């Protein structure tokens, strides 16, 4: 038996269909097409069903990976979906945007062969199956408020509802989903997929109140003292765009990646003028930064008709924080990479529109705190390049609106919320998780934090009830 499996596993990873780059740069259709049932079964059969599955150590929400894969191998797709949903309320999303290569797949025993099991693709495949019938749990254990309907808040809400709490989520935008809706583009994560998973969570009895900015319409204290919420989970994310403070940064044609992506994704400016929110797109677009956000912005600009779209990054390709897959997709689509370049000034005309970028060339020095080699400017190497649009994708800061209103919740020097390992903040009954605690990170880490906090909240409320 074992022998057979070992033989099977020598097969290489099953490829997934992708849209042709020449076609996809003209639309917002999803690039990665997902496995067919045959492909999924084939890939699932490669799994060694390890007795001590290392892959699970890499999954922040502890999905029972070998079990769900085995169910796929046996063509029990519905059961596979059920298995995943025991731990993960957003499988279709994670299967698409989890950095699997750094998580579950990194820990898979087959990783050393260079062909780890494609866990993320299998998860995405299974997520399409499974019954829609969700039975609403009896909710008699108490009331919990969740602030922010991103992956952290949604996960905490779903888990608490399953435990028997009545949960209300307050979200400042007119749609739930957080970065999944306003940040990550349609061609990587269709909004329909996100909404379907949110609807599943609503079926658990979770109430989502949109257009509610906590800290403005109500404070955390009011939620707890006047509205009877026994605990509050804060998952407000890291949504504040950073700028470099350069001359010319307020010229027309300079966007934060957040604004550009929000206009396109949440407000659907790619369907302008059917949808009424406009977005400006240049012919020559320069995106500053080297993370997933920068790749998303550059690829989006191309799809909106930019003739040239380039990434301007101050280190080299190896140091780019974006997922390898995203960098490859960007390259295939014709995004140009201006590496070891750092902008020093944005140039404009008298009407206030961008005309170019002044950059300085960089070289790599010694490694810094993050372990990456530090970029150092080469003196006197400034040069100008043409650009009629500049997008700043150099990171985001934590959202402070709620915190300005709740000084008892202590923050770090970076503005993130201080918590212990299960998410308890310095204010009793208030827990936090996701980007608001870690700074900009990943969907799955935010979900893991939401999950841990849900358990801690349950323990907290039960211990109070006992007294």
């Amino acid at each position, binding site marked *: 038996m074992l022998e057979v499996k070992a033989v099977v596993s020598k097969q290489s990873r099953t490829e997934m269909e992708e849209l042709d780059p020449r076609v996809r740069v003209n639309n917002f259709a999803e690039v990665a097409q997902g496995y067919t049932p045959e492909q999924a079964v084939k890939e699932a059969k490669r799994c060694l069903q390890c007795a001590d599955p290392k892959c699970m150590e890499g999954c922040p929400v502890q999905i029972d990976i070998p079990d769900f894969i085995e169910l796929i191998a046996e063509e029990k797709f519905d059961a596979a979906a059920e298995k995943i949903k025991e731990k993960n309320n957003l499988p279709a999303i994670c299967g698409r945007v989890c950095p699997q290569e750094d998580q579950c797949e990194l820990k898979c025993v087959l990783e050393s062969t260079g062909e780890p099991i494609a866990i993320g693709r299998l998860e995405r495949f299974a997520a399409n199956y499974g019954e829609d019938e969700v039975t609403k749990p009896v909710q008699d254990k108490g009331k919990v408020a969740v602030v922010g309907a991103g992956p952290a808040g949604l996960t905490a809400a779903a888990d608490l509802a399953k435990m028997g709490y009545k949960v209300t989520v307050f979200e400042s935008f007119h749609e739930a989903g957080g970065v999944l809706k306003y940040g990550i583009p349609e061609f990587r994560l269709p909004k329909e997929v996100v909404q379907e998973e949110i609807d599943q969570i609503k079926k658990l009895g979770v109430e989502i109140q949109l257009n509610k900015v906590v800290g403005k319409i109500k404070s955390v204290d009011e939620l707890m003292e006047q509205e009877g919420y026994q605990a509050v989970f804060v998952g407000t994310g890291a949504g504040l765009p950073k*700028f470099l403070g350069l001359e010319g940064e307020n010229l027309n*044609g300079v966007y934060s990646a957040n604004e550009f992506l929000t206009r396109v994704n949440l407000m659907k400016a790619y369907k302008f003028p059917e949808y*009424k929110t406009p977005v400006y797109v240049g012919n020559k677009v320069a995106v500053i930064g080297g993370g997933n956000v920068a790749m998303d912005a550059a690829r989006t600009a191309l799809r909106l008709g930019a003739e040239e779209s380039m990434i301007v990054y101050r280190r080299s390709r190896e140091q780019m924080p974006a997922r390898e897959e995203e960098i490859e997709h960007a390259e295939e689509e014709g995004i140009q990479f201006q590496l070891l370049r750092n902008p020093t000034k944005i140039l404009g005309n008298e009407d206030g529109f961008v005309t170019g970028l002044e950059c300085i060339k960089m070289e790599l020095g010694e490694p810094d705190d993050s372990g990456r080699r530090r970029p150092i400017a080469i003196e006197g190497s400034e040069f100008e390049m043409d650009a009629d649009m500049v997008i700043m994708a150099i990171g985001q800061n934590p959202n402070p609106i709620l915190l300005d209103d709740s000084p008892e919740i202590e923050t770090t020097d970076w503005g993130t919320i201080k918590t212990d390992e299960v998410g308890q903040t310095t204010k009793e009954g208030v827990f936090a998780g996701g980007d608001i605690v870690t700074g900009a990170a990943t969907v799955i880490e935010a979900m893991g934090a939401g999950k841990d906090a849900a358990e801690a909240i349950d323990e907290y409320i039960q211990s109070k009830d006992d007294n």
Partner: protein
Amino acid sequence: MYEIVEKNKLAPEIFHFEVKAPEIAAKAQAGHFLILRAVEKAERIPLTIADYDREQGTIDIVVQEVGYSSQQICDFEEGEAFLDVVAPLGNPIETEDYDRVICVAGGLGAAPLYPKVKSLVDHGAEVTTILGAQRAEKLIWEDRFADLSEDLYIATDDGSRGTEGFVTNVLEELLSEDNDYDAVIAIGPMIMMQAVSDLTAEYDLKTIVSLNTLMVDGTGMCGGCRVTVGEETKFACVDGPAFDGHEVDFEEQRRRKKFYEEHEEEIEEHHVGGEGCRVQAK
């Protein structure tokens, strides 16, 4: 959904709506604004909370038709409802520490100015108001200001009512006689707020303006509302919308407002031809 309980036409192309929103009414203060998305495909449009009634649970907005989205809002009737309203946003305006203030409004600016005047008067300040408009029929809420103000001056561009000319003419006259005021609050078109600020700078008189920048989220998440204030970049939605008029880079703001001019034309074109698009959009 946010139901319209009353709609009035205040002037050509200017409408007043009273909207049912008890939670917002309970929290609204002078200086707050809201963001309204009328229908599914609409833009998010920032509007000042022009008044509120905590007991009735209603808030008031006054909207001027300047482009597609504001027209779309103005096409709504009593009994219909707006899809999304998020509020209160921005910072309330400080009105407690003043004894004598001049409040200046240009055109539609009278609506956002009104709650500030009301709050100043509630806190015991003596308010002199200057209302300006292109012509007499474009003046709004004159009676409301008359009730609250110590003195009320009117200026119209064509002289059809009050003094002929700009509000700054009246302001200059007032200040040249007596400049013993604590502050000037000016709300209106960018060019008018700039002119008022330039004038009061000569008298070294504190001046507060309220900026109507472009916005998307209204919570500090996009940076689309950037404004240079005293060499620093601020976000109008979370740092304002009121700022020290002597520190604001108005030229930059005027340029930024022109950002989407081409798109505005495109929307207009898209809706010419009377396919009933606008009705459909509802």
